[in-house]
């Protein structure tokens, strides 16, 4: 029973495929199969986007001791419908000086790249659209293409703010891609594979009470935190929302977009947020595995979504807490803290791997990570660049 619930989507897909195989020519069956794997992604995640916008606004409201949206529908949960209708019926203004073609393509590419990365994410047991041998690489490669789309959006608008936003966004994404990738490389080193389902499989065992998730190791914990920070920066979400910086450059690279295209940017942003959360879950939080063996009766895809919602909550929470960084602080954080940290973390993972099971590897690996954190964090915290600011004239 639990098994069939766990595999219900897989069964449904196979059943549908069998039905279709009778009517359709066998040549296009692989195509039909992949379409059927991707279709749920195209339905589930945009709806999750719709819900998340409401959740985010309500959450931010609660963090600021407000109610948040509570007018449209029960408890305001239909707010996304109102927003969506508004976005669609709004006039789509394209600046006269804009590069019309590029201006049009940019949001489309952004959404496509954001959706494509879902192909390699395992949502549950046997639930991955494309089991690539190099799935992780695919994820990052497609994600990297979105940088160009951001640049296209900013450049084609012929707007100073848009261009500034695009330059900021690209500089930020290029800088934080390195810690993002390197923090994942630690996991690749341990599991010896780039395929995401295999990485999940490597975390499916239990060691005593704790599951064998990588977040419960010193290097995995540090890697997870670094991954979260880098992901936050990649997503241009607060505190790394300099490319959008409402108070400085209004909306950054999508300032000249209106109506539905504007909504597409938001869709892309949230879709990449879910995708990166999904990747973080897969790499560090054991993917679709249940935390305790006793809880395995809950289907694997449900576990994935529970974890996904937790990650989304984390993102909303940080957004509600932290103020925006300055540009120099951003770069200092990336190049003077994050990158040295991930490099040390790689060493820590290697030490963990070669020290064999036992308490020693906890100590050595943990001491390495903690020592690096103290050493790197101290000057950062005390220096004027990122620490407390002193004013020469204003005091």
């Amino acid at each position, binding site marked *: 029973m639990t098994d069939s619930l766990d595999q219900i989507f897989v069964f449904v897909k196979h059943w549908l495929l069998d039905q279709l195989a009778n009517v359709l020519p066998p040549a296009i069956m692989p195509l039909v199969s992949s379409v059927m794997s991707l279709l749920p992604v195209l339905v589930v995640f945009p709806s999750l986007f719709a819900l998340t916008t409401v959740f985010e606004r309500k959450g931010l409201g609660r963090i600021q001791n407000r109610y948040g949206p509570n007018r449209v529908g029960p408890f305001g949960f239909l707010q996304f419908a109102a927003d969506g209708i508004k976005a669609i019926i709004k006039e789509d203004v394209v600046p006269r000086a804009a590069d019309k073609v590029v201006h049009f393509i940019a949001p489309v590419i952004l959404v496509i790249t954001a959706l494509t990365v879902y192909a390699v994410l395992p949502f549950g047991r046997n639930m991955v659209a494309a089991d690539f041998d190099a799935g992780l690489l695919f994820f990052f490669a497609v994600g*990297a293409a979105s940088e160009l789309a951001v640049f296209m959006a900013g450049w084609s608008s012929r707007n100073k703010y848009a261009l500034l936003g695009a330059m900021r966004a690209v500089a930020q994404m290029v800088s934080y891609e390195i810690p993002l990738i390197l923090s994942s490389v630690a996991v690749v080193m341990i599991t010896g594979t780039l395929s995401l389902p295999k990485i999940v499989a490597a975390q499916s065992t239990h060691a005593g009470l704790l599951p064998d998730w990588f977040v419960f190791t010193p290097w995995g914990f540090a890697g997870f935190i670094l991954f979260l920070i880098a992901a936050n920066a990649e997503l241009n979400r607060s505190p790394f929302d300099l490319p959008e910086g409402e108070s400085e450059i209004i909306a950054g690279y999508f300032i000249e977009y209106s109506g539905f295209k504007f909504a597409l940017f938001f869709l892309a942003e949230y879709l990449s947020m879910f995708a990166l959360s999904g990747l973080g879950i897969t790499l560090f939080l054991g993917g679709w595995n249940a935390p305790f063996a006793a809880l395995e009766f809950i289907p694997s895809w449900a576990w994935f979504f529970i974890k996904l919602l937790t990650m989304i909550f984390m993102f909303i929470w940080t957004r509600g807490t932290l103020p925006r960084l300055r540009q120099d602080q951003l770069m200092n954080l990336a190049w003077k803290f994050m990158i040295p940290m991930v490099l040390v973390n790689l060493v820590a993972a290697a030490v963990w791997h070669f020290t064999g099971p036992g308490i020693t590897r906890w100590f050595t690996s943990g001491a390495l990570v903690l020592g690096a954190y103290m050493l790197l964090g101290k000057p950062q915290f005390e220096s004027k660049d990122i620490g407390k600011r002193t004013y020469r004239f204003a005091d």
Partner: protein
Amino acid sequence: MTLPFAIIAILIIAAATAAMTLRNLIHSALAVAVSFGGLALAYLYLDAQFVGLTQILVYVGAVAILIVFAVLLTRGGEAPEKSVFSASWIWGLLITMSVFATLAWSVLHSFASQREPAEKVGATVKQIGDALMTKFVLPLEVIGLLLTAALIGAVIIAMRDESPKTKMEDGRSKMDKSSVPSSILHPPSSTGGRQ
């Protein structure tokens, strides 16, 4: 030649032609990015997953961005008024033709063209890693050294000779001591004496 390959080839060539002929530099850069993407597709089509994806990651994600930045930082992305065709094109054409002819000749006459096509092996990431760490470890290390040298060089170029802060303090201390006329530091009083 199969249909997918033909489509990919046409895409690459069309994008490359567009990159050469478009007037707007940014458009050219974007076209280059498209042709990089086409190359990646070609690799993927040939079952070289790792190379194809790395091509996207490095070329579309980084090199194209670098080109675009270089264009933006050096001069405006304005389209030049005059035609992109010029007389020197003829020479360029001649040279490229001869290079192409030489390459084509050598490729056609190399042993690679006579070789039997090997049966399809998908080079997995693991195999590539093993090869890099055993057979090709020396080239890998040499390339690593080269890149590190380039990195250090870039940092040294970007580094300022002296930090602006010490410079300013120097300047101020100079100003305090000698370079400022004493009349500014000590305004003469009405009685003519110094206070």
